């Protein structure tokens, strides 16, 4: 039988060969000087779609209520993701961003961090609450969201182009892990996607510069058209 090994996000080839995992750039120092905030454009990449979600307290919300009027950094995760360069990378970098925001109150007050699970089966509001305990600082607005069902989740995934594949056992049952391409989305105050980061790109230095770039736009609805 063919053995299928679906490996997640960066460096998996080294894992497949039994070699040491190479950590994604987001875990270390950036190897270049990123362009300064405001010196470059972040053209809109489409609308950040709406959907029905539930927060870690169990309250039902529309996703647009969460995005409303903020600069949003939103990552799709699932809490039992085993790959160090997958979802844990997203949460690690977002925690670094959180730390920087704590030192930049003018920006902090404009920014909302969002971690949205794409595993409604296992990531209940209680699971998200427990996960959040490891990351969220009380002085930063970081929401941990899930959905009630695949039916609620799939239109959101489709809208953001976030692909994932459930790994299944021989009997077809869900094995509890997924293949996916890591994506973290930067969304402006007008609800438009302005950047998409994956493991090779995701780094707190560039994310912070992008946030400052968007914060410096005088009219977010007409900026970078």
């Amino acid at each position, binding site marked *: 039988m063919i053995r*299928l090994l679906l490996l997640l996000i960066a460096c998996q080839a080294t894992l497949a060969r039994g070699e040491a995992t190479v950590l994604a*750039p987001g875990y270390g120092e950036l190897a*270049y000087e990123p362009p300064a905030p405001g010196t*470059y454009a972040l053209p809109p990449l489409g609308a950040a779609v709406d959907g029905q979600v539930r927060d870690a307290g169990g309250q039902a919300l529309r996703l647009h209520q969460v995005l409303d009027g903020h600069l949003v950094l939103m990552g799709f995760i699932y809490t039992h993701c085993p790959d160090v360069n997958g979802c844990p990378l997203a949460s690690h970098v977002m925690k670094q961003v959180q730390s920087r925001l704590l030192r930049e109150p003018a920006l902090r007050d404009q920014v909302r961090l969002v971690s949205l699970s794409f595993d409604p089966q296992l990531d209940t509001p209680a699971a998200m609450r427990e996960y959040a305990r490891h990351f969220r600082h009380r002085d930063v607005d970081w929401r941990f969201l899930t959905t009630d069902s695949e039916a609620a989740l799939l239109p959101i995934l489709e809208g953001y182009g976030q692909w994932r594949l459930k790994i299944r056992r021989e009997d077809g049952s869900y094995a509890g892990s997924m293949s*996916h*391409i890591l994506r973290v989305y930067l969304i402006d105050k007008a609800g438009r996607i302005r950047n998409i980061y*994956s493991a090779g790109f995701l780094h707190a230095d560039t994310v912070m510069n992008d946030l400052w770039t968007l914060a410096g736009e005088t009219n977010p609805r007409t900026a970078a058209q």
Partner: protein
Amino acid sequence: MRLILALGLLLATQALADETCMSPYMAKIEGQEDFVYVWTLGVAGVGDEQDKLVTVDVNPASDSYGAVVASLSVGGRNEAHHTGLTDDRRYLWAGGLDTSKVFIFDIHSDPAKPSLHRTVDNFVDKSGGVVGPHTFYALPGRMMLTGLSNNRDHGGRTALVEYTNAGDYVATHWMPTDDQLRGAKKAGQYADGYGYDVRVLPRRNLMLTSSFTGWNNYMMNMGALMSDAEAMKAFGNTMVVWDMHARQPKKVLDVPGAPLEIRCAWKPEHDYCFTSTALTSKLWLVYLDDGGEWQAKPVADIGDAANIPLPVDISISNDDTRLWVDTWNDGMTRLYDISDPHKPRQLFEKKIGTQVNMVSQSWDGERVYYTSSLLANWDKQEPRGPDLQYLKVYDFDGESLKQTLAIDFIAKQLGAPHQMRFGAYALYGDRVGQR
């Protein structure tokens, strides 16, 4: 049989073969590919005469191994040329250099039978006058397209054009020229504004472009072109170093003689890329020097330039030690040892056909695929036969190529085969364990 797939690889630390030459931001196939998708030019008098996406079953374990299992025509001839997969590998983008149309194929719903998902037919208008979409390079959630020309004079001045994965226009990034350097500095005498290929080294925030020629030349009969001294001056002589994050050109490098395909090394300590120059028949190295500056220099000859071998596609091995180099005019493929990138050394050569253009290798380098067509008005017309317009597949044991499959695209009434991309059921969790 063991199939290994790796998804979403973003670090440039991996050993990537041509299977993933397009982009490090993409799911990839490490084991046996199931299909090769061949973007094929329509040829007058051959089959339905239309451009088409030809799907060939290349898995030896399959009952239909070696067969054309699907052929999807797109309704006309567009000068079919290059293709590229989105980062999630669900869609294959394919361009027409003449009509500037972009065809987006769904290859995930049924990998054995792609369907046409969307046609972008306003590329020129949306981009502000860019003509000839060439390279389709996957970035996170979007595609970076290179142009070859423009709609003002149909010469070589052109731009990069960015689209979302959904096929919506995002932005145009014009190549720097002498009169508009756009913040770039010239390293030598040229800033011609021409374009061809694009590659990215994410760890260095490097985006690198190369340069070919405009619509006036690539749509001209090759004999007429070669005898037109003015036209022969209108080829690119530059590569451009871009700030990837800002999409801003930083430095224009002199690389005379039409530098075409770009292949970057993958090991984290290997800050360099190769290209070949079509007109001067040389391998060039673009590398980060000790002072942190990107430089370019010729590092090897490809055949005898006096015979105009015309280097075309190149393919780097999964460990940065070997580079396949095709030369279209003499139908040869050459293998170089690039262990020392500053001193490549030819290991051997083999004639593949009357003409040879594209070369793609599997992740492990054990299978090497070739197609023949370059451009409709440049392709040779004779001698007719199985070596004129073909897909050929070889096993490579590290020392020699052994042919395992060949399809005559004229005899099969398909057309002239150009770029190849691999497909696999397991990328989409389909039919796993059933084969």
